C-alpha cells in the first residue's frame, strides 16, 4: 500500500473574505440592466414628482381666502396673533398689576355637528349652539406688546382655562405659575414689570406675597408700548376615539379684572379696545369687547396668541410634501431588493453562489450590504435634490413652507434615504423567505405603503387606529420626515395626516429597523435550514 497524495489544484487559492463576497454581489447587481434601470427610474420618479406641476400650490388662485400668507413672529416662525386688547400707551419702565376673579367662556356645542369631511370647521357666525365653558388654553390677563401689529413681540401674564397661571412671551415661550383655576374665592393677582428691554412676570394669590414666574428680554422694545388687558380663546375641538371626523369651531373667553394699577405712565390715560387680527384669519365672527364698570373690567375675546400649527385651522406645507415621490421610488427599490434574491432561485444561480460561498449567512449579509448601499445612495441624491429645489419652487409660487433648520433638513434627507435602504433590505429578506418575487414585493408594499396611505395620505381611519398604525408598522419610519414642532401650549389634534407623527424621528426609524432585523433573522435561519 502506498499512500496517495490528495489532489491539490495548482491554482493559488483566492481570498474568500466578506469583502470578496460583497464585491461578487456588487458585480451581480450592476450587471443586471433591469435593476440599474429601476434605480435610475427611482431617482427620476422622486425628483419629477417632487418638482411636478401639481407641486406649485394654489396660493391666491381661488380668491383672497386661498392666500397662503402667515403672520410671522419675531423669531421668523409662523404665529397666530388674534385677541381682544384693552390698552393704553405705557412710557418707559413701569408695571401693570391686576386682580382676576373670573375666567368664563362660551364653547360651541358640536354634538349635533353635521357630516362630511374629516375636518369640519364652522364659523361662529353661521352659529352652532354654544354652551358655557372654557377651553384649556383660553387666556386672559395682562400683556405688554411692542405694537398692535400682528406678530410683534410681547410678554404676557395670564390665567388659562385649564393650565393655571402662565407667563408667555414671543409666541413660543411658556412658563407655569400658580396652578388651579380662578374664582372670586381664589382670585389670581398678576403683575408684569418692565425694566429696559426686560419684562418680568409675577403672580400671587393674595396681592401681598408675590412669586416671580419668568423673565424675558425683548430686544429693541420701543420706549412707549401699548399695554393692558387681553382675552382670547382658541379653536375648540371635539373628537372621540371611535370617530374619524373632527369638529372644531371658535370659542370665546371672558375675564373679569379689578384692582388694576399702572406704574410709570401718564396717569388717567384712556383705555382703548382693539380686536387684534379680527379681520379674516381663524377668528372670524364676534371679535369680543370690553366693559369698564367702576374699575371692574370685563374683557372678552377669541383667537390665540401662540405659534401657528397645521391641522384643523392650519395652512402651508412641510418639506415632507416635496418628498412624495419617495413612494414611487420605494416601490422600485422594493422590487429590486426582492429580485436581488428571488432571481437567484429562478435561474438556479443560488446553487453556484452557495457552492462558492458555503457560509450562507454571509451571502445574505453581503447582499444586504450591497442593496442597502445602492438604495441609500439613490435616496440620498434624489431626496437632497427635491428638498432643496422643491422648497424653492414652492416658495416661488407663494406657498408657505414651514421652516426647518439646516440640521432638520439633513435629518429628513438622510432619514429618507435610510428608510429606502432598510425597506430594500426587508424586501431582500422576505424574498429569501418566500423565494417568490410577487409575494415578497406585495408583502413589503403592504406593510410599508398601505399603512402610510391609511394614516397620512387619505386618513380614513379613526384617530386611535391611525395612531396605532403609525407606531407599530414599518410606516412609523416616516417620522424621519417630520419637521413640525408639537407645542404643548397649543391645543390641536396632532395627527400623522397633519404632519405630526406619534413617535420621534429616531424611534420611528428604529421600528423599521426592528422589522428589518426580524425579517433578516428569519431569512438567515431559513437560508441555512433549507436546501437551495
Amino acid at each position: 500500500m502506498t499512500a496517495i497524495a490528495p489532489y491539490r489544484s495548482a491554482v493559488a487559492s483566492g481570498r474568500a473574505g466578506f469583502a470578496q463576497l460583497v464585491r461578487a454581489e456588487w458585480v451581480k447587481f450592476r450587471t443586471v440592466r433591469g435593476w440599474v434601470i429601476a434605480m435610475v427610474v427611482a431617482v427620476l420618479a422622486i425628483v419629477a414628482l417632487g418638482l411636478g406641476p401639481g407641486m406649485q400650490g394654489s396660493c391666491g388662485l381661488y380668491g383672497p381666502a386661498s392666500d397662503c400668507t402667515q403672520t410671522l413672529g419675531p423669531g421668523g416662525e409662523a404665529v397666530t396673533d388674534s385677541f381682544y386688547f384693552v390698552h393704553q400707551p405705557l412710557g418707559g419702565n413701569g408695571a401693570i398689576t391686576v386682580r382676576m376673579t373670573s375666567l368664563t367662556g362660551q364653547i360651541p356645542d358640536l354634538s349635533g355637528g353635521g357630516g362630511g369631511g374629516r375636518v369640519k370647521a364652522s364659523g361662529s357666525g353661521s352659529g352652532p349652539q354654544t354652551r358655557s365653558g372654557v377651553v384649556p388654553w383660553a387666556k386672559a390677563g395682562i400683556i405688554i406688546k411692542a405694537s398692535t401689529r400682528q406678530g410683534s413681540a410681547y410678554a404676557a401674564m395670564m390665567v388659562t382655562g385649564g393650565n393655571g397661571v402662565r407667563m408667555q412671551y414671543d409666541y413660543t415661550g411658556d412658563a407655569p405659575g400658580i396652578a388651579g383655576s380662578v374664582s372670586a374665592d381664589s382670585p389670581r393677582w398678576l403683575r408684569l414689570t418692565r425694566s429696559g428691554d426686560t419684562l418680568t412676570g409675577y403672580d400671587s394669590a393674595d396681592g401681598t406675597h408675590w412669586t416671580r414666574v419668568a423673565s424675558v428680554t425683548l430686544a429693541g422694545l420701543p420706549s412707549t408700548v401699548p399695554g393692558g388687558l387681553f382675552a382670547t380663546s382658541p379653536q375648540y375641538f371635539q373628537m372621540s376615539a371611535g370617530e374619524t371626523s373632527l369638529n372644531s369651531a371658535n370659542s370665546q373667553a371672558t375675564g373679569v379684572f379689578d384692582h388694576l394699577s399702572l406704574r410709570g405712565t401718564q396717569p388717567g390715560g384712556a383705555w382703548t379696545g382693539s380686536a387684534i387680527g379680527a379681520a379674516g384669519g381663524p377668528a372670524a365672527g364676534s371679535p369680543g369687547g370690553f366693559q369698564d364698570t367702576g374699575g371692574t373690567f370685563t374683557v372678552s375675546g377669541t383667537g390665540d396668541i401662540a405659534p401657528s400649527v397645521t391641522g384643523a385651522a392650519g395652512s402651508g406645507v412641510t418639506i415632507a410634501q416635496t418628498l412624495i415621490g419617495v413612494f414611487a421610488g420605494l416601490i422600485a427599490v422594493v422590487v429590486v431588493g426582492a429580485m436581488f434574491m428571488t432571481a437567484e432561485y429562478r435561474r438556479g444561480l443560488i446553487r453556484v453562489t452557495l457552492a462558492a460561498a458555503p457560509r450562507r449567512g454571509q451571502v445574505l449579509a453581503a447582499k444586504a450590504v450591497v442593496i442597502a448601499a445602492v438604495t441609500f445612495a439613490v435616496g440620498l441624491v434624489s431626496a437632497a435634490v427635491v428638498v432643496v429645489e422643491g422648497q424653492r419652487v414652492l416658495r416661488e409660487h407663494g406657498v408657505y413652507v414651514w421652516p426647518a433648520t439646516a440640521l432638520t433638513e439633513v435629518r429628513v434627507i438622510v432619514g429618507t434615504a435610510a428608510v429606502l435602504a432598510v425597506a430594500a433590505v426587508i424586501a431582500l429578506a422576505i424574498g429569501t423567505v418566500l423565494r417568490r418575487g410577487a409575494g415578497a414585493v406585495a408583502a413589503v408594499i403592504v406593510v410599508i405603503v398601505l399603512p402610510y396611505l391609511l394614516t397620512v395620505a387619505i386618513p380614513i381611519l379613526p384617530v386611535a387606529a391611525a395612531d396605532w398604525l403609525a407606531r407599530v408598522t414599518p410606516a412609523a419610519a416616516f417620522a424621519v420626515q417630520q419637521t413640525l414642532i408639537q407645542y404643548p401650549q397649543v391645543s390641536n389634534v396632532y395627527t400623522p395626516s397633519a404632519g405630526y407623527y406619534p413617535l420621534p424621528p429616531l424611534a420611528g426609524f428604529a421600528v423599521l429597523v426592528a422589522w428589518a432585523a426580524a425579517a433578516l433573522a428569519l431569512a438567515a435561519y431559513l437560508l441555512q435550514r433549507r436546501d437551495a
Partner: protein
Amino acid sequence: MTPLRAEWTKIRTLAGTWWLLLAVIALTVAVGSAAGAAVTCQVAGCGQDPAKLILSGVDLSQTIVAVLAVLAVSGEYSTGMIRVTLTAMPRRLTVLTAKAVVVTGLVLTAGAVGVLASVFAGRLMLPARGFTQAHGYPPLSLANGPDLRAVVGSVLYLALIALLALGIATAVRDSAASIGVVLGLLYLFPIIAGALDPQWSRRLAQIGPMTTGLYIQDTTDLRGLPLAPWQGLGVLALWATGALLAGGLALRLRDA
C-alpha cells in the same frame, strides 16, 4: 373549451391558488370587521358611510387578487411552462382570454364570498356601534339600492383588478416587477394626490384606478365624489382593458 380546461387545470393544481383565494376571503372579512369595530357613530349624521366602512377589507384583499393574477402569467414565464403552453395552443390571444376567464371566475367567486360575509358581519356589528335607524342608518341590506351597488361593485372591482394585473403581468412577464407596477398604479395615485394642490388632486382622483374604482362603495354623500360610482368603476375598466390590450399585443409580438 380546450384552452379553458387547460388553464383551469393549471391554476387548479397549484396549491398557492387556493391559499391566495382563502386569503382574499379572510382579509376582506377581517379588515372590514376590524374597521367596523374601530369606528363609532355617536350622533345622527355622523358623516360615516357604513357600507364603505365594512367593505374596506377590499383595500387590502385587492393586493392578494393582484398577486394571484400576476402569478397566473408570470409563474409560467419563471418555469418555462409558457413555451409548452404556447406550443400546445399556438393562438396566443386565446390563451390570454382563457387565463382571463379562469382567473376572473375564481376572483368573482372568492370576492363574492368575502364581500357577502363582510356585509353579514356589518349587519351584526354596526347597529351596536351607533349605526342605528335613529342616527339615519338603516341596517345594511341587499334590497337597498346603494348597498346593493356597493356589494356588487366591490366584487366587480376585485375582478377588474385581477384583469388589470393579468394584462400588466403579460406585458412585463417578471412576477416581482409586475406586482410592483400593479401596486404602484393602485397605491401611488391616492398618495400623490394627497400631497398636491386641490386642482391636481381632483384630477388624479378622477383617473387613478384604485381611487376611481372604489367610488362604487360610496353610499352616502355621492355629490362630493369626483366621479359617479359607476363612472368610477368604468375608469377602472378602461385601465383593465388598456392593460389587457398591451399584454395581448406584447404576447402576440414577442418571443416567449
